């Protein structure tokens, strides 16, 4: 540590300090050796920090002040739907009846929780145009895996051993990774000049060996698949199923339903579409909605209603099994439920505003950047920084870093992979016109700096708590943990 470094919690440590009040056992004293057995007792205590409560509070408060967050400013991170996270949802999830409910509680004592999940399932079915929902998956990628396993079980039951999954070249990396975890070979299909999946290539790839097409719609270019009906026909025509990566569901709530577009199964990201906080990378929740044909394969447990009683159903003979312990990320689902109840049928206006904001910002920025797919966009759009790179030798990464100096989070960059120097911007519906104007002005100013002072941009950020960090060194010589002074590697 140097005097320029922000200390680690371990570096605040003073032997003997403690930040919690410690209980007494208050039961007759029995030697621990009798209870546990001497040979099983820990000999070398865990070298956890030793700090006072105020040390602890200041350390984490100061760390929080070294963070960017939605509550701090605009977060136009394409594909991530960084919308406002309502406070009332936090209050809801922290109600003792939810936060203090044990997952092994008998159903008879969890009726309120089960009723909430049952109604949430009804609402998600209505919004998606699907028939059933599982709440087991903890995140979007987990939902992808769950869905693919159901698809595989569906084909297997028909004695139809299919080996391949089609993924467009614009897809999220989780799609091919999920397919591989389900034992499938991935076939990549290109996009056409308008940014839609290439129907000719899709037709050539779609044969009896294909289990499913994983499609994001609107896709990762922020464009609606204009030929979605034909895509569904091609896929169903070869006996495969159509899977929707619901990452971009925020664009179409109440406007069009995946179930009506021909999708058989989809996942939703509650931490995108339904406003649950991203938590610095998680938790999320990835409910999967299915058409009736996949219902038998849902993971256990499902939530069932019998009259006025609700119960978890663990006894589903054709289930793919469990994908996690217990009942899903319930605390996240409470927030999603509260969000939907705060909107009701007005939910459609969420998508309309998200689409309007994106188109407005796209129009505002279009004179300054290349726009590889020049169409009306949905909730997000993808620019290219190739002009800035070619003319001024400034990369998209540099532009992103310079934006940080103006107090904005950067857009998603270098994704989707099919756009050179991609800059992917998603404003969401919760941002005002004034915020978008300020962001656009900052980004335009950075493009001017690319011409007038490219070195300033290439060496950004200049106003953050640290300068640009050496990621190559981090990967070459990984330092993944603090070690007690003088300690060598242990356990290896």
């Amino acid at each position, binding site marked *: 540590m140097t005097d320029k470094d922000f200390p680690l919690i371990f570096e605040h440590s003073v032997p003997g300090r403690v930040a919690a009040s410690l209980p007494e056992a208050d039961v007759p004293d029995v030697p621990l050796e009798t209870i546990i057995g001497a040979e099983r007792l820990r000999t070398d205590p865990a070298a956890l*920090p030793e700090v006072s409560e105020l040390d602890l509070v200041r350390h984490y408060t100061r760390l929080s002040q070294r963070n960017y967050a939605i509550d701090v400013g605009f977060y136009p991170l394409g594909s991530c739907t960084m919308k406002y996270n309502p406070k009332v949802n936090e209050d809801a999830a922290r109600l003792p009846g939810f936060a203090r409910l044990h997952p092994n509680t008998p159903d008879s004592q969890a009726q309120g*929780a089960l009723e909430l999940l049952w109604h949430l399932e009804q609402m998600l079915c209505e919004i998606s145009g699907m028939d059933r929902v599982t709440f087991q998956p*903890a995140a979007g990628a987990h939902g992808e895996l769950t869905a693919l396993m159901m698809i595989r079980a569906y084909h297997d039951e028909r004695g139809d051993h299919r080996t391949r999954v089609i993924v467009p070249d614009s897809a999220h990396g989780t799609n091919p*990774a999920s397919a591989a975890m389900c034992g499938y070979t991935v076939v990549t299909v290109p996009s056409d000049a308008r940014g839609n999946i290439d129907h000719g290539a899709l037709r050539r790839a779609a044969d009896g060996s294909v289990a499913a097409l994983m499609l994001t719609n609107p896709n990762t270019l922020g464009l609606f698949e204009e030929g979605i009906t034909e895509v569904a026909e091609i896929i169903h025509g070869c006996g495969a199923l159509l899977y929707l990566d619901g990452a971009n569901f925020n664009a179409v709530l109440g406007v069009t339903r995946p179930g009506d577009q021909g999708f058989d199964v989809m996942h939703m990201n509650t931490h995108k579409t339904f406003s649950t906080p991203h938590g610095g990378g998680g938790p999320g929740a990835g409910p999967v909605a299915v058409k009736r044909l996949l219902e038998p394969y849902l993971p256990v447990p499902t939530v069932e209603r019998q009259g006025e009683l609700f119960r978890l159903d663990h006894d589903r003979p054709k289930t793919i099994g469990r994908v996690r312990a217990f009942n899903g990320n319930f605390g996240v689902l409470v927030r999603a439920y509260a969000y939907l109840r*705060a909107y009701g049928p007005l939910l459609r206006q969420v998508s309309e505003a998200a689409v309007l904001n994106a188109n407005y910002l796209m129009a505002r920025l279009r004179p300054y950047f290349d726009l590889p797919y020049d169409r009306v966009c949905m909730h997000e759009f993808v620019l290219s920084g190739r002009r800035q790179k070619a003319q001024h030798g400034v990369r998209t990464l540099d532009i992103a870093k310079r934006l940080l100096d103006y107090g904005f989070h950067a857009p998603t960059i270098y994704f989707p992979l099919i756009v050179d120097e991609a800059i992917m911007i998603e404003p969401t519906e919760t941002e*005002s016109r004034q915020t978008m104007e300020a962001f656009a002005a900052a980004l335009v100013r950075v493009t001017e700096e690319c011409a007038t002072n490219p070195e300033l941009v290439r060496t950004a950020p200049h106003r953050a708590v640290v300068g640009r960090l050496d990621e190559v060194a981090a990967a070459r010589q990984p330092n993944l943990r603090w070690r007690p002074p003088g300690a060598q590697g242990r356990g290896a």
Partner: protein
Amino acid sequence: MSSSADWRPHKYLPLTAAERDEMLRLIGRASVEELLSDIPAGVRLRRTLALPPALADGDLLAHLRTLAERNGHADRLTSFLGGGAYDHHIPSVVWHLAGRAEFYTAYTPYQAEIMQGELQATYEYQSMLCELTAMDVANASMYDGASAFGEAAVMARDLTRRDEVVVSTAVHPQYRDVLRTYTRHLGVRVVELPHHGGITPPAALRGALSGNTAAVMVQSPNVFGCVEDGPALAQAVHDAGALLIVGIADPVSLGLLQPPGAYGADIVAGEGQPLGNHLSYGGPYLGMLATRQAFVRRMPGRLVGATTDRDGRRGFVLTLQTREQHIRREKATSNICTNEALNALAAAIYMAALGRAGLRRVAEVNARRAHYAKQRLCAIPGIRPAFNAPTFNEFVLRVPVDPQELDARLIDRGILGGLPLGRWYPDLRDGWLVCVTEARSRGQIDALVEAVATVVDSVAPVSRS
């Protein structure tokens, strides 16, 4: 079907109808409808979503409180439930700090320079988890203990190029279910090794190992609350050239018990909920995953590493990302993207709050109070311990009444009793898993004992032996 007619003010939606019209005019569009014109008419929804009407905050909270209060939560009933989730006292500082909006409304720290808070906190979490488990490296979290357990099996297969894992039946049944789900399509064979007396028998284990065994998977404390003989298991596993994967039912136990790294575990994959996270009906929790330095490049999930900026100042970044799906796609170590960062942050704050001495003290109080409860419950005629192996904060009793019936009677007395094990273990139909943490007082334990004695006496006086 115009969208314009029903554009209404909402507190989460800043655009007014006037602003909308002005913005449309500036981009040369007649209506929002025009912006949706790429969506084929045939798939448009021609009606309003049939959702329950919007609720104002006051009504919304009242509605949710009504639902919440229909639950037998741990502030209403005195809980002795464990079995994979644990009711420990959570110091107030934990969620006052983890609940700061700068943490919970942030995204994955892709722009490192403005996310040093999140990144450093994660680096500290990784470090504390390594100290707790005595392992070399830990990742930034998995979904939960069970999915971490499943991913650990895949990791072991890739590391050893062997295709069979042996899992003890003393591992939580839901973890074994997830293990089967995760490995089913990857050519990994799962072989179950029966527990003996509540623990995994090292001698029988040797017989179950072969040149195909990638890993042996145990939990300690296991689903019965029993502490495994880690060193003996590690010896047997390593003699066969396989890896030892250790789940931990409750990581608070490591304040008192030898950590897996000390007896040679190769991968630790367990549930982190007990470290400062709410019960929350099963989630969000966090999967803990830690391993040896040499295995780090086969590890799934995000990792934070320390580096420097151009002035030599210490900073933190996401690192070794070539393992991950957004770079490697179908060749990634896993498909995991979103993790449980906020829960890992809470776990770190919890560990730092207790510190070196505090974690030991809390673990000790768990063990002592659980031992006291076990002794007193076993003094009730007809009740006996199911196993003799040492236990930490939960234990299995054989009870002379139907455990579900017992629980139902206890609920009438304001007590959430133990977990009936019959649905998972047919030979434990009379098995009742009781958990006692430091959050249960001696008075509450005594009340449990009295209530159980009363119920046993009234329901099954004849079944005493």
